[in-house]
């Protein structure tokens, strides 16, 4: 009899599976298509950024922050710069603050296009993904114009930004934002968001309640998708975010239970509109001229101390815990990322779902593998 007894099948999903974004591995125990357990296995993209930080000067670590989350590198730059500025007491010129906000919100747009685009790709909808990528292409062009690079922007510097605006950037930026808000998003929603197949795939799948989200330290859009209206830009304004008007989209159980995959997806789609609003206000409020960078001493040293500074990156709370011993380099730098906490919850919410649902859950949590491993 034992020969024919059924047992669970162990499936290896990843490290190079099409829908484990980046290099990520899941060890699935399945009963046919039904999942019994999904254990994430990470570390394939571990580059030792925290160790590198202890070996390079304060300013020279900035390019490495691009590599934390390659989809929104400006946001990571900003987080690091804010942390060091807070510790070293560096003032940032007004104009630079506005440029930072414009770049960071553009980064959020660019990241969300990939975020929900890749989710749709995982669900088999290729066209919306390509349409989202088309918009990201415009974002890439804008960032190339502003910073000189298309992916690892390395725009923010300690005490300012690297470049002032290029000519014609603001007009293009405004045009892009208008296009997104009035053309792209409505069309995209008609094309896919309200498609009943998509709703069936996402609604009531991978439900995360408010309590679970808090327990597993979920952050960012995933936390808001679970119904917690918590946004660091609003609740703990950093940089100059307190000057802008915007709403915090929260999951309301649009087509199913609150905190399901659709809510997380929908929060991201709505955040695109909110970011557009912020960018528009930042363009309007941008001071006509002025310094964009505080000059730092040739040998930049940060006084002894430690600080934890968190910012709202597209994947949620991006925190830098920096310990300085007063030297030229950080003594210890810890990067706390949104994907790291998102991935821990997968094991918890993937019990009893189907293999196809796991794909939707991973996609809706918007996990980026290099951010987990750092």
């Amino acid at each position, binding site marked *: 009899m034992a020969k024919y007894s059924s047992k669970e099948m162990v499936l290896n999903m990843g490290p190079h599976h099409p829908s484990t974004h980046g290099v990520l591995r899941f060890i699935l125990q399945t009963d046919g298509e039904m999942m019994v357990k999904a254990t994430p296995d*990470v*570390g394939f993209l*571990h580059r*030792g950024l*925290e*160790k590198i930080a202890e070996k390079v000067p304060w300013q020279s670590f900035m390019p490495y922050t691009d590599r934390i989350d390659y989809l929104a590198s400006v946001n990571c730059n900003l987080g690091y710069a804010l942390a060091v500025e*807070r*510790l070293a*007491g560096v003032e940032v010129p007004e104009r630079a603050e506005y440029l930072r906000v414009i770049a960071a919100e553009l980064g959020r747009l660019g990241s969300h296009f990939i975020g929900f685009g890749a989710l749709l790709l995982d669900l088999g909808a290729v066209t919306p993904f390509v349409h989202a990528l088309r918009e990201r292409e415009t974002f890439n062009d804008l960032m190339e114009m502003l910073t000189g690079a298309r992916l690892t922007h390395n725009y923010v510097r300690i005490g300012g930004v690297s470049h002032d605006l290029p000519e014609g950037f603001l007009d293009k930026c405004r045009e892009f934002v208008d296009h997104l808000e009035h053309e792209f998003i409505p069309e995209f929603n008609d094309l896919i968001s309200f498609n009943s197949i998509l709703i069936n795939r996402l609604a009531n799948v991978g439900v995360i309640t408010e309590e679970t989200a*808090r*327990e*597993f*330290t*979920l952050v960012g859009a995933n936390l808001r998708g679970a119904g917690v209206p*918590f946004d660091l830009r609003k*609740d703990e304004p950093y940089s100059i975010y307190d000057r802008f008007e915007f709403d915090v989209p929260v999951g309301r159980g649009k087509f199913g239970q609150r905190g399901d995959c659709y809510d997380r997806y929908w929060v991201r789609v709505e955040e695109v509109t909110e970011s557009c609003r912020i960018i528009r206000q930042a363009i309007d409020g941008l001071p006509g001229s002025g310094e964009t960078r505080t000059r730092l001493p040739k040998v930049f040293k940060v006084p002894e*101390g*430690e*600080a*934890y*500074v*968190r910012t709202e990156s597209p994947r949620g*709370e991006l*925190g830098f*815990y920096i*310990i300085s011993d007063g030297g030229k380099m950080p*003594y*210890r730098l*810890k990067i*706390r990322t949104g994907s*790291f*906490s998102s*991935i*821990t*919850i997968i094991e918890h919410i993937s019990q009893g779902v189907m293999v196809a649902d796991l794909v939707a859950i991973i996609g809706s949590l918007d996990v980026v593998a290099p951010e987990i*491993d750092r």
Partner: protein
Amino acid sequence: MSREELIAKLNAALEGWLDTNEQARTMPNNDIMIVLRSESLLEAMGRLRWDSAFEFSVLMNHLGVDYKDRFGVIYNIFSPSLGRKLTVKAYVEHEKPVVHTLESLYRGINWYERETYDMLGIVFRRHSNLRRLLLPEDWEGHPLRKDYVYPESYGGQDHSREDLLDSCASGKTAKGDSDG
């Protein structure tokens, strides 16, 4: 609640668990940092977590630090009801770094503690799954320790790499000169 009030309340509530050598202090980012004795970490954190006066129910961040003579474990916690952040630190001796896990308080801390164990070798007692997280299971040493020596090879793979600029003939004129 003002900062001073909170500090006073914390000092009162955590009496006996605080590290007597260190005072509660304000960090550059306006957080409050308190230092606990590592033996009483679980009790003190439990108080912070469950006491209705604090309710520090959200774990923001956890890390370990190598201070050369001792280790530090740091927890950034957040209280939605107070709207306040708190940084809790505890020092662990360097020779035998053991501290109690906080899994019973924060479910999400599992992976953070695994990472700290992986990178610094701080052992979390009673942890449900204390294995290496980012590095391979058979990796030797803990990279974020200050006395860590880079291995020359792993799994039969040589890690030493010569500097390309020194190895290739440096007198060679560049192909890209025409651009310059």
